[in-house]
Structures are given as C-alpha cells and as structure tokens.
C-alpha cells in the first residue's frame, strides 16, 4: 500500500471529521474558543509527548513510506494529519454526546 498512514487517516479520521464537522457545525462555531484550546494543547503537550515517544523508541514512523516531509522528527501525516483530525473527531463526538444524550 502506498502511504499507509495517509490512507488510514483519510478513511478513519478525515471522513468522520468532515461528517461530524458538518453535522455539528453550529457547536463548532459556538464553542470555537474551546476548540482553539484543544489545538493549543495538542500542539504543545501533544507534540512534545509524540516527539519524546519517538525519541525513546516507544513507536517509530520509519517503518512504512510517508509523504517524506518531517517536522520535529514526526512525519507530516502525524504533525498535521492526526493532530488536527483527531481533535476534530473528539470535539465532534463530545458535542454529539452532549447534544443527544440526556444527563
């Protein structure tokens, strides 16, 4: 498979992220500050955690072909793809639960 990580992100994160973003677009707009702080957390603590995990060999991204762009020792699929899409998916799921599940 060419670019397995990108393919994985496209199927399991990009499509759900797009669907959730569309369905809960009102919540994404209303609580954009909360969404902003989620991205801040991912791009500070999250990136450091990911970098550290690669640095101490807990996981490794060199096992399969990537797009070839690396940022802070992480492939761009992880640096931008997973970090952005996972936040969108998590935000969408939480907003969905808060909207449809009673207290």
């Amino acid at each position: 498979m060419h670019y397995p990580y990108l393919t994985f992100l496209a199927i399991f994160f990009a499509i759900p992220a797009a669907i959730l973003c569309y369905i809960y677009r009102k919540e994404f707009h209303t609580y954009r500050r909360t969404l902003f702080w989620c991205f801040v957390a991912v791009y500070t603590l999250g990136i450091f955690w990911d970098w550290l995990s690669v640095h101490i060999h807990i996981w490794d991204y060199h096992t399969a072909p990537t797009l070839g762009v690396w940022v802070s020792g992480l492939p761009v699929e992880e640096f931008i793809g997973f970090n952005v899409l996972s936040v969108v998916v998590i935000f969408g799921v939480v907003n969905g639960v808060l909207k449809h599940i009673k207290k």
Partner: protein
Amino acid sequence: MTYLGLTLLFTVPPLCLIWLREEFFAVLKKEAKRIFVATALLTVYGSVTWPIAMRWGAWEYDEAKLTGVRLFSFIRFEDIVWWALVGFLFTSFIVLSRHYEKLGVDIVQRELRALGRSFKDAFQGLKTVTKERNITIHATVMIAVVIAGAFSSLSLIEWAIIAIGIGLALSAEFINFALERHIDALVGCHDENARKAKDAAAAGVFVADSIALILAALVFVPRIVPFIAFLRQFE
C-alpha cells in the same frame, strides 16, 4: 520509560488539574454520565482502528516498551489505555470549557491570568522581604555557602543537600515574617497569645536554621578537616 508509563505521565497530571478543583468538579459531576459515554465511544473507536493502522504499517511499536497484553489478540492494552485516558482528558476539558464559554468566560485565559497574578504577588513579596534585617543575614549566609560550594567541587547530591538547606531556612524566615506582620496588624504587640505565636514562629526559624547548619556541616566539614591538617604542616 514504557508506553504505559508515558501515557500515565502525560494524562494523569492534567486530569488531576481538572478534576481535583472543587469548582471544576462541581461542573463535571453533573455531566459524569455524558463524559463517560463520550470517553467510551472514543476508546472503542480508537482501540479498534489503531490495530488497522499497525497492520497497514503506518507505524510500529518497540515490543520491549509494551506489556504484551492484547484484547481479542489484536488490540493492545496500551492503546486502549491511551484512548481511554486521552479521550477522558479531552472530554472533561471540552465539557468544562464549554460550560464557561456559555457564560462568556474563557476558562484557560482566566486560569493563566490568575497564575500570572500569583507569580507577580510572589515577586512583590520577595522585593518586600529582602529589605528586612533577618532576611539579609540569611541571604548573606546563602551567598557565602554557594561561593564555598562553587570552589569545593561539590557533587550533584551535595548541591541538592545545600539547596534543601537554603530553601528550608529561607522559607521558614519568609513565613515567620508574614506571621509577625499579620499578628501585628491584627492585635499589636501587647497581647500574650500574640507574643507566644510570634515566639513559636521564631522557634520554627531557629529549628530550620539549625537543620540547614547541620546539612552544610555534613557537606563542608569533611573538606575542612583535611585542609586544617594540611595547614598544620607549616606550624
């Protein structure tokens, strides 16, 4: 450090920051059921999809950093814990932040500003106390100890001992200063109980200083004794 250890290190402290605060706990408690449902959904989704990424070769783990425990022989225990804790952390934060955002408050900004104010007050406090006689004496002794340490080739452990001694003595003096001023502001100098309270605080400083002196002696006396023996050769 293992995968599990690093996951706990990066998720448990922020969770404590959110859940141990009484104000935040009151908000989150009301949404406990929905937080649980969202966390469960994210855990299941993440735990099931990540093995697919692994099978396609998106990334690889070092088996030495894993427990080797798997659910249904393909879902790693660490991945489940990762999604459960990260899901729980983000869900808790999103629920909390949404609650405050609805009230027109940016909770992260509010907390950062309060933290900034605490640091500002602490530095103001340092400026205030450094003008006091007892503090200047302590600071002088501290500087002398640091200079002596710098020219004595202290090990890391010895520097740690010195730092503990200095911290202990200075902290006790700062607290004594605060207590004295507070008592004077409330009741003045002529109250018997106030005098006893001040004496007890001063005794606390004496104990802290004595411990600091013992720690310094433990570090420096073994160095001074051979030096004195060396000097005696020339008598």
